[in-house]
């Protein structure tokens, strides 16, 4: 048995016939929104979500996918999943640069700041150097301490 749900759109009223366990079937009683035309033209009872998944797995560039979905009802979760598969992070760029064995102008991504990928930047972890003292200006105590007195000594300056 199928139920009929009427969805009100600002420009048109659609009647969506829901078929349990098979998906949504669009029955257009008036002109339909553009985002439903791609699905409806195939003649298959596929839902909008299925169509979006098909496009995501097509291997198109990220920009193409985003432009295709610019007027559709793509959920934020889907966009985030698409962005993750787009390999657009700075880490991905660094991996590509390092794996290619060449050094393209990575500075163009950092606003002109110099970048180094494989260099050891250990200088900032080094302790500050000890002061330099001339041997004639460093005097050492022999350790023969002179005990002047304890707290109870009446004459504290006398050993």
């Amino acid at each position, binding site marked *: 048995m199928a139920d009929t749900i009427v969805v009100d759109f600002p420009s048109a009223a659609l009647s969506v016939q829901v078929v349990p366990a098979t998906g949504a079937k669009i029955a257009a009683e008036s002109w339909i929104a553009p985002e439903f035309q791609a699905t409806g033209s195939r003649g298959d009872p596929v839902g909008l979500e299925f169509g979006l998944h098909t496009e995501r797995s097509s291997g198109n560039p990220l920009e193409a996918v985003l432009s295709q979905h610019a007027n559709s009802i793509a959920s934020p979760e889907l966009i985030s999943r698409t962005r993750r598969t787009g390999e657009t992070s700075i880490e991905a760029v660094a991996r590509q640069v390092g794996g290619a064995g060449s050094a393209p102008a990575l500075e163009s991504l950092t606003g002109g700041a110099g970048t180094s990928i494989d260099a050891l930047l250990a200088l900032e972890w080094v302790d500050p*150097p*000890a*002061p*330099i*003292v*001339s*041997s*004639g*200006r*460093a*005097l*050492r*105590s*022999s*350790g*023969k*301490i*002179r*005990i*002047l*007195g*304890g*707290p109870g000594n009446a004459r*504290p*300056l006398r050993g």
Partner: protein
Amino acid sequence: MRIVTPFDPIEVGEIDNFAFDFTADVGAATIVSTNWTCVLAPYQTAVDPAPQSRVLSASRQTSVQLRSSVDGSLQTRLGSFSVALIGGMPASAAGGTYILEATAEAERNGRVQATRIMIPFGPLLACDRLVIKRSERGLSMRSSIELQSEI
């Protein structure tokens, strides 16, 4: 106690590090603070209106690099040091004698001995002295040595 070897002379306007090695006195304790004083020795014609200002900075160090006077090579020495940056003596102090005192306060068993020692200075005739006061809680040291300035 007397330190036999004096500091090397310093020239007018020269700035250099001076260090006292308190390692033998501190032992297993740790220097927690240090202070240097600089006065012009009495009974001389040299004039320095502000001798204390010749102590530019002071710090406690656990290592210093000793520069050999023979070949200039550096040797790292570990221990308990009190290091001060001394210099800027005026031309009016040429030929005079300064008395430098370094006080190091050491911490032992987590407690600091904060008592300072009053050293009765008499007429100083190239007298280098190191006086240490020890107590159950810690020890405090004061060392003084002559600093001869020359032109």
